[in-house]
């Protein structure tokens, strides 16, 4: 099953390679990984999308916790978190297709961030389904290039208060 894991870690050189090395060294899947500093510049937040059965996910969470540069690990179950991804899609547009491209962008509340006589670059943000849907609609027009950020996710506040909490694992080595 797919899991989104949020990792708080030291913002220093080497920390990222420790996480990446863990996944490659132990043969864990990694679908996407995104990382950037938080408000506290000494701390980074990383979102990892991975998959595996229960036993593997348990190992991934424990192994992440074991990394000394990792401060906190939270397994964000899909329903308890908001996940978003941004894609930049460069669409090839013949003149008769330009209106159609704009219309599709409009439906998805996407923005055109660059245009040339033969192309539009469309920026779209949303959950995985939304990104997949817009790609599907744009494909017949001809997609030249596509760049995706990988998912970022954050726990839902409302749900966290009432229902099942995301499980922060006690940090232990």
């Amino acid at each position, binding site marked *: 099953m797919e899991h989104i894991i949020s990792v708080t870690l030291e913002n220093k050189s*080497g920390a990222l390679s420790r996480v990446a090395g863990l996944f490659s060294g132990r043969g864990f899947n990694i679908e996407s990984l995104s990382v950037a500093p938080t408000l506290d510049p000494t701390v980074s937040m990383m979102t990892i999308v991975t998959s595996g059965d229960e036993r593997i996910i348990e190992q991934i969470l424990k192994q992440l916790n074991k*990394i000394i540069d990792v401060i906190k690990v939270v397994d964000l179950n899909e329903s308890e978190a908001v996940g978003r991804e941004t894609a930049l899609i460069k669409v090839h547009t013949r003149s008769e297709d330009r209106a159609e491209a704009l219309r599709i962008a409009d439906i998805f509340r996407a923005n055109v961030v660059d245009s040339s006589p033969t192309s539009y670059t469309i920026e779209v943000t949303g959950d995985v389904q939304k990104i997949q849907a817009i790609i599907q609609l744009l494909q017949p027009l001809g997609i030249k290039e596509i760049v995706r950020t990988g998912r970022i996710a954050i726990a839902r506040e409302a749900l966290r208060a009432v229902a099942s909490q995301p499980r922060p694992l006690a940090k232990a080595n």
Partner: protein
Amino acid sequence: MAQLTGAEIFVEALKREGVKTIFALPGGVVLKIFDVLHQQCDVEVILTRHEQAAGHMAEGYAKATGKPGVCLITSGPGMTNVITALADAYMDSVPMVCFSGQVPTAMIGNDAFQEADNIGLSRPCTKYNFLVKDVNDLAQTIKEAFYIASTGRPGPVLVDIPKDISMDKADFKYPDSVSIRGYNPTYEGSKWKIKQAADAIMKSRRPILYIGGGVQLSGASQEVRELAEMTQIPVDSTLMALGAFPGGHPLSLGMLGMHGTYVANMAMHYSDLVIAIGARFDDRVTGKVSEFCPNAKIIHIDIDPTSIRKNIHVDIPIVGDCKRVVQELNNVLRATVNGDQKELRKPWWDQLNEWKAEHPLSYQQDPDQLIKPQYLIDRVFQLTRDRDPIVSTDVGQHQMWSAQYFQLANPNTWLTSGGLGTMGFGFPAALGAQAAFRDRLVLCIAGDGSVQMNTQELATAVVSNLPVKVFIINNRFHGMVRQWQDLFYEGRYASSYLDQTPDFVKLAEAYGAAGLRIKTPNEVDDGIREAIAIDKPVFIDVPVDQFENCYPMIPAGGCNHEMILEDPPELRKRQTTGVKGKKESTDTILTA
């Protein structure tokens, strides 16, 4: 405050950490550090002849003392040479701090002379590593390195020091304490889980204690012994745990696993409750995972949460330091244990004693035939046991026989490479232990194959007066490889026959050490006594029966209750008739 150079800070920091001895080999980028070390005498520098050996010596020192071992090596090839020892220490959770030299900070990344990416190279085989980029951080970094290496689940830590950092100056203040926000090992076990464990123990009819290297590392020998004696539960030890529970204790069933005793493996397989303490369910112990302990509940006590449920399902996981958890468990049990535990456990012990009697460890030594390796090892054990020796081994058959026959009585007396299985570990590890304990008897049981991976350390042994006694179980084979070839490859000895074994006696003598050879069974006892009486490093070459195999054996991936107990008939036939190996081997030592 007077400013110190990085090199001076390094030496001061070692002193504050109580380091008495380091194992080292110099090079361009660490010359400043060596220069400062040379002008003081609080920290002894043992110059090794190879960085791998420096690493293993630090490991031997650490295993024997329980304190972090320290080595210091240069950049580039120095670093790549020490990797094997780091990987070995990481696998076996050996506390160790390795200092590596690095090219000056301004040159890092430029493919400078003898540059290597020390941090990248060591990342997968260290618990943590540091590159020091500012001399003002050096003292703090060293403090943290020792802290990380020796706390939680111990392991090797690398500190990479660029040349300019060793020459830059800074105020020296050694921190009193360390706080790392991402590193807070759990020492106390959950009271609730411990209570559950105690309940399970009280209910169990066929419990077994399965103890691992964690018992040595956390110093939990006394607690484990109390637990076993109070409840009369039998004890299986892993290769890494030998000595942590006395091998000769009536409750000890010896080693379990691939070459464990029959009774130890049967006890695991038929138990209804496995109490794992500081052990990690390694594949050499579990055999076929799907059929591992089919009827048992499993309690797992370990300081490393990742060890729990990594390989097998655990019913009662307890994360914590073995010593503290077992202490607490004993407290709970002391209040609940009632009745005569011996009486209660009698049916289980009757069964165990039956297994013990059915297939004890055995070998046959004919006085007129070649020396059996087991006989030699058994005699070394018998003749030295009253001196409480520290024993190291290399890797192979001789290692397994040593594990079977040395019934060590005390923790921290057994130095062996378990997880990585590193040939060449034994001799330098013994030297490291001897450097820590100059007055103790330190033995190494080596293979003729393995020992050749680090014989250059004879020079270190002689120059640094480390009088270890190295018994070379000389079968002119990579014996363990030969055994697998005999059992699983129809006796085709691909690259396992060592037909150019050096004259180990002359080799030792060439370095100024002593050399002895024990040729026949009736020379064994005198030879051992003579070797031990020599106040120098000694190589004792013992040509042994080449075709002896190590049993019991559970083939890789086999079930624990299905052991091979002796040479199968087809192998015996091959050896007495067509004998590929025997005929092919022009065994000079034996015919001489």
